[in-house]
């Protein structure tokens, strides 16, 4: 627990960041679990309601505890094989065919090599 108010504000901002990331991940894994769109909307509303219940907490320790519980619950309930876009980080096509650096020149003489 820091004494200065600037440090407290920074800590609260960091907490807000954690909440945002948790909500983002929870929503994405909910979408992976509930693929049918109508069911996804119902589940997403439930997640949002779970976050909104604790919207008006003010004490730092209570918020910390809630975030911890949320993250542990996420660890338990996350999807084992989440959908990642193939060309995104963690996907199967990530950096698969990177562009060739400009210093490299391709010489198209297949079949006409001289083998000096």
């Amino acid at each position: 627990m820091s004494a200065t108010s600037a440090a407290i504000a920074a800590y609260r901002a960091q907490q807000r960041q954690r909440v945002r990331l948790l909500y983002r991940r929870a929503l994405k894994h909910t979408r992976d679990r509930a693929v049918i769109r109508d069911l996804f909307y119902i589940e997403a509303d439930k997640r949002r309601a779970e976050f909104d219940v604790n919207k008006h907490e003010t004490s730092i320790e209570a918020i910390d505890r809630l975030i911890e519980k949320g993250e542990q619950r996420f660890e338990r309930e996350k999807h084992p094989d989440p959908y990642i876009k193939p060309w995104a980080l963690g996907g199967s096509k990530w950096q698969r065919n990177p562009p060739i650096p400009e210093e490299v020149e391709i010489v198209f003489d297949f079949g006409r090599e001289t083998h000096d």
Partner: protein
Amino acid sequence: MASTSVISATVPQLASPPNNALAANVTGRYNGLKCCQLPQRINLRSSTKNCPSRAVRIICQSTIQQVQDIIATQLSVDPSTVQPETKFSELGADSLDTVEIVMSLEEKFGVSIGEQDAENISSVKQVADLIEKQRSI
């Protein structure tokens, strides 16, 4: 500017498929490829004044315009209040709403915005720039 004029010359073809499709459901014969073109792939920078019909004008929308429309639909606000410089807090969206908007934009445009990039989104223009950046990769 030759490329945009070429695009606007070929785009009017897309105006005909809806009518053909209605007729084709009766006759059963039409060029399926024309109807399969995804509208959001066309990314014209020029203004939409040279697009004749309403259907073609929707297809000609730039990224920022589509982003504004989606945000207005998600937050149930008037689309005219959503300008590129508008912040999400001005539109009455808290941080969780921002997360939802970013997710729906990712799904609509088929991009994947990283978590670090998505941290400090505050205005509409930032989101549109991020989407453009991811699309060009």
